[in-house]
């Protein structure tokens, strides 16, 4: 493990700052100094210092106050308190608040070495703990599926249940909700987990290609078939086949797959010899297949064959309480990938993320966080870093007087809530009587029908 650390020395006495600065430099640490608590907090905003040496007695913001702020905003940052003889009591209270250690100045040179050694051991243990915790979370929380909302808990509970059986599963959810991740989690939990998991996006390829990909073909059956090729239905042998965008496949392909599911046999293109196959099918769609069955667009028999168990994956707008957790997860992910360090989100920025509707769901949120991390210039994401997110409801293509804007917005909320005044007033955070007055003032009328 690398023992080099990023250290900040916070002391109002220049001579102490300088001594410690040169001392830590001798160990190859990255060292910075600050002459006040305010300056230290400013520097912490821009750089993730791992360890701070803080003098307890400083004008303005004293060491204890600074320690409290650090422990609230940057709980992972370690703080060693420096104090003079005679202020042991403050050192004890600092330890209670969360200081890692304290030094009474002037100290013997080997005392600081001992403190650094203890910190190094602690750092190693924390890093081991985080690694194991992360590993455990991965095992128990189905890899990258993040969420603690009631809706997601339902999905989490269903995964191990359905994984044990061999029945076909249909995952229903809007684009970007993480259907493939759920499919992978089901596969990982199933008895087939040691066998292949193959994912095919049916909407991304034309019918002829999809047929050849699934069933395989013999050499020379069509132009370009220079050699025989096994289809995914054969390659998957024993594993799980995930067919994304199943609603996009043609009626002919629906019949072919229905036959495969019923007979558990395939015949590759150009061959007459049927081959026995074994696989578990998980399909996914963002379309309302039930409706399409009623309309005659999708085959009913095929629908019931693939839809033995249906799992609905909620859109992000219906589980907004998961957004902070997802943001934290993606921040960690993209900090590792981009080697940038962004670990904070201001309250306003989080509010913006929570209020946006996320039509592209988790995938859109992930892309937004990646973009913001790449472009961010400090360790904290602010509203300015997310300026590319424009809540559709707040977009106005033309400039309107405030009165007109208020009228339009109230009308929009009323329409969205089917003219339920109580509900609309709640959303607008005004009381019902006020809303009635505004409806009257703006002469808003409920459309007929």
């Amino acid at each position, binding site marked *: 493990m690398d*023992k080099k650390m990023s250290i900040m020395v916070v002391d109002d*006495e220049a*001579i*102490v700052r*300088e*001594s*410690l600065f*040169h*001392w830590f*430099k*001798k*160990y*190859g640490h990255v060292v910075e100094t600050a002459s006040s608590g305010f300056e230290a907090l400013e520097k912490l905003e821009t750089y993730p210092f791992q360890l701070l040496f803080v003098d307890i007695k400083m004008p303005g913001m004293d060491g204890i106050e600074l320690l409290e702020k650090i422990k609230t905003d940057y709980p992972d940052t370690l703080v060693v308190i*420096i104090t003079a003889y005679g202020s042991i009591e403050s050192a004890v209270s600092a330890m209670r608040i969360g200081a890692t250690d304290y030094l009474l*100045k*002037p*100290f*013997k*040179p*080997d*005392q*600081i*070495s001992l403190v650094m050694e203890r910190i190094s051991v602690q750092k190693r243990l924390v890093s081991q703990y985080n690694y194991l915790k992360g590993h455990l979370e991965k095992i128990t929380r189905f890899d990258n599926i993040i969420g603690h909302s009631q809706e997601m808990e339902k999905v989490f509970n269903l995964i191990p249940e359905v994984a044990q059986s061999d029945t076909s599963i249909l995952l229903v959810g809007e684009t970007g909700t993480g259907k493939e991740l759920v499919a992978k989690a089901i596969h990982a939990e199933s008895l087939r987990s040691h066998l292949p998991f193959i994912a095919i996006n049916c909407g991304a390829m034309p019918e002829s290609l999809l047929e050849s990909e699934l069933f395989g073909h013999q050499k020379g059956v069509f132009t370009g078939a220079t050699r025989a090729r096994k289809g995914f239905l054969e390659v998957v042998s024993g594993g799980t086949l995930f067919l994304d965008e199943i609603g996009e496949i043609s009626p002919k392909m629906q019949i072919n797959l229905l036959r495969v599911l019923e007979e558990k046999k395939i015949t590759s293109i150009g061959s007459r010899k049927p081959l026995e196959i074994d696989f578990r099918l998980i399909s996914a769609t963002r379309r309302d297949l039930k409706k399409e069955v009623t309309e005659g667009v999708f085959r009913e028999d095929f629908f019931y064959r693939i839809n033995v168990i249906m799992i609905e994956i909620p859109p992000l707008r219906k589980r907004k309480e998961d957004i902070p957790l997802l943001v934290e997860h993606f921040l960690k992910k993209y900090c590792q990938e981009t080697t940038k360090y962004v670990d904070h989100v201001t309250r306003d920025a989080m509010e913006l993320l929570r209020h946006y509707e996320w039509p592209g769901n988790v995938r859109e949120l992930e892309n937004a966080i990646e973009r913001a991390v790449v472009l961010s210039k400090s360790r904290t994401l602010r509203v300015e870093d997310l300026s590319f997110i424009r809540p559709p409801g707040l977009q106005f293509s033309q400039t309107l007087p405030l009165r007109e804007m208020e009228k339009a917005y109230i009308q929009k909320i009323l329409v969205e809530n089917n003219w339920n005044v109580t509900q609309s007033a709640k959303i607008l955070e005004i009381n019902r009587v006020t809303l009635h007055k505004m409806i009257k003032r703006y002469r808003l009328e409920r459309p007929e029908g």
Partner: protein
Amino acid sequence: MTSKKKSVGVMPLGNISEIALQVIADHIAGCFKLTTQILPSMEPPGVAFDERRLQYNAGIIIEAFESIHFGNHDKVIGILNKDLFIPIFTHVFGEARQGGKCGLVSLFRLMKNPDGSAPPESLIHERAAKVALHELGHLLDLLHCEHKKCLMHFSGGTDEVDEMSLDLCEYCSIYLQDKLR
């Protein structure tokens, strides 16, 4: 192509025995393969004396000497028999800044064993040579090393100085060669 050998001046600050100075200069020449010269004596600046602590502030002495031109010498090691400190520490055996020009070695605490007894003169000289080489290492940008026997390992007491060898570990040797190239 060979580069010019670096030259180190060994400068007594006050009245220091010639043998001690010679031992230090010889060790620098032998261990780091550098040219050395014993310089005429100077007095440590009076402003460096801290009346409250009755010790000399190493940082102030170094700052004063950094501004002096010492002929052709790339680095200068000052030797004194006064007790040295830097503000955060109770004492230091020596002091130098990473990549700086002047370093200091104090014989004051090297003349006592941890149990308070007086060591033989030869041991004091050996300790002084080790501290001088360690501080010169910092002047040549070497960092503190984790290997307990390495010259660049930090020693808080004379027992640790005695435990340290007169050699650099494999890694610090390579680093030094790079720095001297």
